[in-house]
């Protein structure tokens, strides 16, 4: 059994008849602008890492359509249990760029108070749940939140993401099974970008596709061209609607490609064939969507400039402002372990305080990765 790969736009950005969701021009331009801004953000993040100004970065280059198309199908009141490769959603949900950049620096402007590595965001104001490094855990949590919404009787929909590697995690199995058994309103988006660091998806699993794994849970599985923002949007919109109507979860596989190395710590050239990479570069989701906008007469050079330069300027301003902010104070290390610090934590805070008064504590440490 084989699942069809759904797409709307061909490589030249022409929409297939009857499939175009016919979004209003403003919305189309908004989506494009977000994709461009996401890439600009990623470029800048990597640059800052290369300059040694932040410790780590991880790009989503080539996957802008995949995660933006998906999240665009949600209402703002819907919740996200993201993985670490969907930064565009922050822009879609209007998180101030300065807050994003503060997270990279882990400074006092970081909502996570400098506790996590770069790109592990948490934005309550955007219903964007704190990102975890351990692969897959968010999938079961999204199922649980969906169950909670059903228990409470509200109509929130939950969208959660994982990679092709994530399909092998315990939580993929568990999260999908629980969501299906309890008909939780969850859309599981598996961004199959071909690689889990150096492991190709062909060695991750020998199943026909990732989407077909939905069969194991009695839920619909859909395969969609992940570099086609309209197709991703359409498929996810259907899944979101089904979820909201109480018809249960869906697994969406977006077939895409990790254009960059896994992260700033990785060099994909060590293990990846240049040919494959070149072929995928040609399928750039932004370029394809640009063609579509051109056909629709919604794209001009000026618009492009505005999108790109606007994003760059915003990011530059944000970096400047963020970089100027101090790190969280030492005493903050003991906050948020519990709602109230235990006597032990108070004592340890005091102990550190006294040692620091004496001076010298807190030697320099190495860098990630060694």
């Amino acid at each position, binding site marked *: 059994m084989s699942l069809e790969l759904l797409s709307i736009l061909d490589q030249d950005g022409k929409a297939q008849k009857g499939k175009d969701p016919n979004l209003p021009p403003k919305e189309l331009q908004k989506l494009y602008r977000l994709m461009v801004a996401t890439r600009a953000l990623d470029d800048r993040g990597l640059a800052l890492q290369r300059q040694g100004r932040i410790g780590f970065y991880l790009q989503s280059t080539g996957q802008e359509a995949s995660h933006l198309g998906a999240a665009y199908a949600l209402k703002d009141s819907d919740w996200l249990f993201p993985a670490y490769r969907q930064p565009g959603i922050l822009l879609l949900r209007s998180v101030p760029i300065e807050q994003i950049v503060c997270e990279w620096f882990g400074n006092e402007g970081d909502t996570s108070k400098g506790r996590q590595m770069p790109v592990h965001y948490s934005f309550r104001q955007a219903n964007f749940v704190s990102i975890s490094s351990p692969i897959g855990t968010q999938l079961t949590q999204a199922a649980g939140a969906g169950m*909670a919404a059903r228990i409470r009787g509200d109509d929130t929909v939950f969208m959660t993401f994982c990679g092709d590697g994530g399909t092998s995690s315990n939580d993929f199995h568990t999260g999908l099974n629980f969501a299906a058994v309890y008909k939780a309103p969850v859309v599981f988006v598996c961004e199959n970008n071909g690689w889990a660091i150096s492991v190709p998806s062909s060695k991750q699993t020998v199943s026909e596709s990732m989407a077909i794994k939905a069969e194991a849970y009695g839920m619909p599985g859909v395969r969609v061209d992940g570099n086609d923002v309209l197709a991703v949007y359409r498929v996810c919109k259907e899944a979101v609607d089904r979820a909201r109507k109480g018809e249960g979860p869906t697994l969406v596989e977006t077939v895409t490609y990790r254009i960059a190395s896994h992260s700033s710590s990785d060099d994909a050239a060590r293990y990846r064939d240049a040919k494959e990479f070149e072929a995928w570069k040609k399928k750039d989701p932004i370029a394809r969507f640009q063609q579509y906008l051109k056909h629709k007469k919604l794209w001009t050079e000026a618009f492009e400039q505005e999108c790109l330069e606007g994003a760059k300027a915003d990011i530059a301003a944000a970096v400047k402002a963020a970089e100027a902010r101090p790190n969280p104070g030492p005493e903050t290390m003991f906050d948020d372990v*519990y709602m109230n610090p235990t006597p032990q934590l108070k004592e340890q805070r005091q102990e550190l305080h006294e040692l620091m008064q004496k001076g010298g504590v807190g030697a320099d440490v190495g860098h990630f990765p060694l």
Partner: protein
Amino acid sequence: MTATGTKSAAAKAGTKVMTLLEAITDAMRTEMRNDDRVVVFGEDVGKKGGVFGATMGLFDEFGEKRCFDTPLSECGIVGTAVGMAVYGLRPIAEIQFLDFIYPAFDQIVSEAAKMRYRSGGEYTCPLVIRSPYGGGIRGGHYHSQSSEAYFCHTPGLKVVIPSTPADAKGLLVASIRDEDPVMFLEPKALYRHAKGEVPTGEHVVPIGKARIAREGTDVTVLCYGAMVPVCEQAAQAAAEQGRSVEVIDLRTLVPLDEAAVIASVKKTGRCVVVYEAPKTCGYGAELSAIVAEKCIEYLEGPIVRVAGFDTPFPYTLEHLYMPDQKRVLAGIDKTFAW
């Protein structure tokens, strides 16, 4: 079968005699009535009422929406509980035996424990994981283990272990109301053996306060859970030998009531630590270390640990594996050996 006991005639006004198990059911029922965010789930907790009967009656009273069975996945039980807690419910997740919690270990240690911290306080995870732990029922290798130390070593978790019915209710209510994730470990050996009066209405025992189970002046015995009655018996036997033993029931392992521990050791000058988990790196090691760091100058003998042996849990030889009154007495003796 009701959870409110049959000896109510003998009980004081506003209290009933309950087993520890009944007190646990009572705590959940009370809080489910109080707060409709409270839900309870796990394997076999619905119609069957749990393999030990802890959720008996809850399915009938609150319906499947608030008391439900899950697929056989501890990862799912805890992982969905995390999602529910993050989204605003107050989930109580039952793990059938503590021995089976490991498929959920990642969700507990990496997620529940760290959610508040890693999100800078934006997201919290107020859930309770209830699970029967410990030996004494001939459950053998995989139905008897005491792994509280793993959780005590995990910042972000609270760890609570009651030893009396009244505490079981009061501490469980406090755990359900707590804003942080609580491991609520139930000494299964006491489920039906521990009986006592329990307030029938509102009853909260605060997390973080130890209980002096027996006052004494010569030696302090630190213990919790199913070891408390064992230590009390040992204290009684020691009294007959002319030694006055103070037994402290810790009640909460994290956060520990260190002040109570230190006050008692300073008073008695001797300390025995009793736990049924494997000795090496058990929670009792922490207790020894605290005493050795903070009041060693008051000691008149070594700090002695009486614990499970450093082996997996045996079936046939369970009675030799678990600390009993005689072993506790021998431990007490050692503190007088100088």
